[in-house]
C-alpha cells in the first residue's frame, strides 16, 4: 500500500468515531446492520430501476461501511479482497446501477462484490469479524 493511503488509514483509526466504534461493545454490529440494510435497499432499488432509491441505499451502505472501515482501516486495506471490493468492484457497481441501469449486469457485479467481501472476511487478519 502507498504510504499516503496507510497514513490516511491510521488517521481514520485515530478519529473520535474510529476509536468510539472500536471500543464500544455494541456499535460494531449496529454499523454492520446499517451496512447490510443499505445493501439490501441498493440491490432491490436496482430491480425496479428507481434511481433515487438506488442512491439512498448506496449512501446508507456507505455510511455503515465507512464506520466499519474506520475501526481497523490499516488492516483491512492490506487485504487483497477488500482492496478489490473497495477500489474496483464497488465503484463499478455504483456506476452500473446509477448510470447503466442494466439488471443482469448488476446481478453479476453484485455477486462479484459479495464474493470479494467474503474472501476478505475469511482472510481478514483483524480482530473484528
Amino acid at each position: 500500500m502507498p504510504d499516503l493511503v496507510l497514513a490516511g488509514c491510521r488517521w481514520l483509526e485515530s478519529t473520535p468515531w474510529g476509536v468510539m466504534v472500536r471500543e464500544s461493545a455494541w456499535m460494531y454490529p449496529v454499523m454492520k446492520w446499517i451496512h447490510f440494510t443499505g445493501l439490501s435497499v441498493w440491490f432491490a432499488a436496482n430491480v425496479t430501476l428507481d434511481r433515487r432509491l438506488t442512491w439512498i441505499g448506496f449512501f446508507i451502505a456507505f455510511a455503515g461501511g465507512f464506520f466499519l472501515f474506520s475501526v481497523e482501516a490499516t488492516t483491512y486495506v492490506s487485504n487483497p479482497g477488500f482492496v478489490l471490493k473497495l477500489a474496483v468492484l464497488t465503484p463499478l457497481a455504483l456506476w452500473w446501477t446509477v448510470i447503466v441501469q442494466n439488471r443482469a449486469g448488476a446481478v453479476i457485479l453484485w455477486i462479484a462484490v459479495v464474493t470479494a467481501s467474503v474472501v476478505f472476511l475469511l482472510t481478514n487478519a483483524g480482530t473484528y469479524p
Partner: protein
Amino acid sequence: MWQALQHAAWVEAIATSRGLYGLFLVVHYCGLFSCVGAIVVLDLSILGVANRHQPLSALVRQLRPWTWVGFGSSVGSGFLLFTTKAGSYVTATPFLVKLFIVVLAVVAALIVERRVSTWDQAPALPLPATVLALLSIVLWLAAILAAVEVPALTGLG
C-alpha cells in the same frame, strides 16, 4: 441429533473447506439482500416513498421472483452454514430470536403480497396497508439486526 448432524461427514467437509463455506456465505448474503431488499422496496412503494409512478400490482409482479428466489437461496445456504456448528446454534438465544423474527417477517411479507393488488384499486391507501407495510419493514430490519448480533453476542458465525 444436532451434534450428530454437525459431525456428519458431508457437514465436516463444508466446515473444513474455506472454499465451500465461503461459497455458501456468498449465496446467503446475495439471497438475503435480494429478499429483504425486494420486500422493503415494495413496502416503501406502498407507503408512497419509492416508485411513485408505477402501479403496485406491476411492482409486486416484478419484485416477487427477487423476494422468493432470494429467500430460498438464503434459507438453503443458511441451513448448510448452520449445520457446521449446529450443536452450538440450537442453544444460542440470539440465533433462535433471529429465526423467530424471520418467520414473523415472512408472514407479514406474504400478507402484503396477497393484498397489495386490492390496495391498488382503492382511491386512497387503506390504513391496514400502511400498518402492514410499516410492520414488514420493522420486522425485516429487526431480522438483520438479530442476525448481526448472533456473532457479536455468541461468537458463532
